[in-house]
């Protein structure tokens, strides 16, 4: 017996876990919301999604292969997620070239420049989105109406988002009850029949995706629940104080990017805290900032900014909120 054996430290078995499984699991969880966006925004949504995903993959491939000269890992699915999420965060009639620039910012600047997957401090899709919002404010805030624009690529019939109508009206001194007639019904908000970024409209589809990720243990409940609950409580209290200025909290939950942000963006494992306690703090922070921006900020929507700001606090949160240790000795 003169065999040569492999020698390595224990453990000698590895669980059935991989980055690929996690990332493609997230992609699968995004499919319901993607289908809803295709249904409401038609060809525009399809082309935007395709462009975003393929340019994200392209930029990641080029950077890994020719600049960093490392193993190309585009098949791990993380660039696909960034592409889909970026597409979800823009209106369906956004010019294609802008989408490509957005993908460049997301992948090259927000992800690869830090060293690629796992090293980026900010959610790449959100950086891409905020860049587009600041660079192209008009194109990024003209929202195609659902259904009527199914076959339109560019010159879509547009209208403001529900949050936009509210912000505009309140700032002009109108009351919530008079504005209510211009707002879509809650059932429409819930299934996604409203103007908005293409992936954020359907709460139900996003929740289905979230439940799938919970079931597959890709995410835990801590961030989405604490985030959504905080927005609900915050806006609920204001609504109780003065319902004529502050709309009811259910409206806040169902409009804008809250569901998308809370379920898919804030839970990005790379840019969120490590411990359960830290996740709760992170979620509450996101919730408070979102509500603050929505109610008193200049923008009608604050989810992207809230999550990006909280991303900056993650190292501190990780330091301050440690997981529970076994046999902790009280000092």
């Amino acid at each position, binding site marked *: 017996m003169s065999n040569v054996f492999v020698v390595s430290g224990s453990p*000698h078995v590895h669980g059935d876990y991989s980055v690929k499984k996690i990332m493609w699991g997230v992609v699968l969880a995004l499919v319901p919301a993607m289908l809803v966006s295709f249904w409401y925004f038609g060809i525009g949504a399809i082309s935007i999604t395709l462009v975003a995903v393929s340019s994200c993959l392209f930029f990641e491939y080029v950077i890994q292969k020719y600049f960093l000269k490392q193993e190309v890992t585009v098949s791990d699915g993380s660039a696909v997620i960034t592409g889909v999420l970026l597409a979800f965060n823009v209106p369906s009639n956004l010019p294609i070239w802008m989408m490509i620039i957005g993908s460049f910012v997301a992948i090259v600047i927000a992800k690869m420049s830090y060293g690629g997957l796992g090293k980026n401090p900010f959610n790449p899709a959100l950086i891409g989105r905020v860049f587009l919002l600041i660079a192209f404010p008009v194109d990024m805030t003209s929202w195609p109406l659902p259904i009527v624009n199914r076959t339109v690529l560019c010159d879509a019939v547009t209208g403001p988002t529900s949050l936009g109508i509210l912000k505009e009206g309140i700032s002009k001194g109108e009351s919530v009850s008079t504005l209510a007639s211009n707002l879509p019904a809650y059932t429409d908000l819930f299934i996604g029949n409203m103007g908005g970024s293409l992936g954020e409209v359907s709460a139900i589809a996003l929740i289905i995706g979230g439940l799938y990720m919970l079931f597959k243990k890709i995410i835990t409940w801590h961030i989405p629940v604490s985030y959504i609950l905080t927005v609900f409580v915050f806006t609920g209290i204001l609504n109780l104080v003065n319902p004529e200025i502050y709309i009811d909290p259910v409206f806040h939950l169902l409009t804008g990017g809250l569901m998308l942000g809370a379920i898919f963006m804030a839970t990005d*494992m790379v840019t969120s805290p490590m411990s359960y306690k830290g996740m709760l703090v992170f979620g509450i922070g996101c919730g408070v900032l979102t509500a603050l921006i929505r109610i008193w900020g200049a923008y009608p929507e604050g989810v992207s900014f809230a999550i990006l700001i909280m991303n900056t606090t993650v190292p501190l949160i990780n330091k301050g909120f440690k997981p529970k240790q*076994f*046999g902790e000795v009280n000092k």
Partner: protein
Amino acid sequence: MKTFNLGGVHPEENKLSGNSPIKVCSIPTTVSIPLAQNLGAASVPIVAKGEKVKVGQLIAKGEAFISSNIHSSVSGTVLKIDDIMDASGYRKKAIIINVEGDEWLEEIDRSADIKREISYNKGEIVSIVKDSGVVGLGGATFPTQVKLMVPEGKKAEYLIINGVECEPYLTSDHRLMLEKGEELLIGISILMKALDVSKALIGIENNKQDAIANLKKLAVNYKGIEVHELQVKYPQGGEKQLIKALINREVPSGKLPIEVGCVVNNVGTAFAVYEAVQKKKPLIERVVTITGKTVKNPSNYMVRIGTPLSFLLSEADSMPEGTGKVINGGPMMGKALTTLEIPVVKGMSGVVIMPEGEAKRPNAYNCIRCGKCISACPMGLEPYLIALMSEQNKFESCEGERVMDCMECGSCSFTCPSGRPLLDMIRVSKNKVSQIIRLRSNK
């Protein structure tokens, strides 16, 4: 169902040899009995080259407080005392004996009769256990007599018996609980007497229903011994996890189980205590599982200490083509061997043979900060963080993160989706931190 609450993983169980009764391995022509077989100081040889020995004869003495006696497992002539390769991969001193016949010391009771009556007092039991060279057979090989001497000011309330065998593949404890149940319970009663405790709890994971049923049935006749069924979860065989699972007490960081009134022993150890005290038979053989997916007949063998592993494997006909890795112990905590020319020792509970396809680790990628290692760590540490600090040589910070609490169960590396060798880096850090601690206490 009872289990521990913090962390843990569930590797594929692969208990292939669970239904295979213990066979007796034949005696080789020479044995090499290492002098360092226990945790603590190595034993000192008391035989010389050319001397005749019998089975069970004392051949090396444990002189330090934490050390253990070693007995000859065969009869024959001492060939030499020389350096040989042992399971650690280092060359260490061993007594090499040429086997002649199978002549046992006369006082050893080799009959199959079960001797139930315990005729010794506390002090006598401890000294017999010490003289017989009994060590923890779960793998840690801590000298058992030291565990039986409860430090002053502490009181043992429970004797915890570890029948968990949470490592995948291994079944030596399982077979003992099935085949030597009565002896085991007598051994436990002896340990209870030595520790002066009225309660002993046996923890067994519920993938060994037959062993649970067997011991439950037999335990009716033994006062104070309870059998507890535990949910299958790795690393429940860690003593801190087992205590938590059974009586919901947490051993404080850096302390021993006696801090919460517990003494933990493995079922194999309890059986060895029975043989030592009731049959006057020192620890000269143990059950070793030979297993693996490509092994023809995964089975359990009663093997004399010092038998070359290559001899045992060829007797078991268990060296299949395309073997990529041979593990001393289970796949989670065992050590990969470089050669089969090593002796079976007191701490060897099994050998797992892995085919080439499974021998190599997955590729390692960037940490994606998913936190799976944190939720897997049974000690509540942050493996990703300690590994990172270790890579950056920040060992003082590792100490602050309580790296010394790590028992190297491997749950972190096992779960890491990026395939990072977390435990390797943590081991480096543990090594460095213990050096730092030693330097500090020397000042």
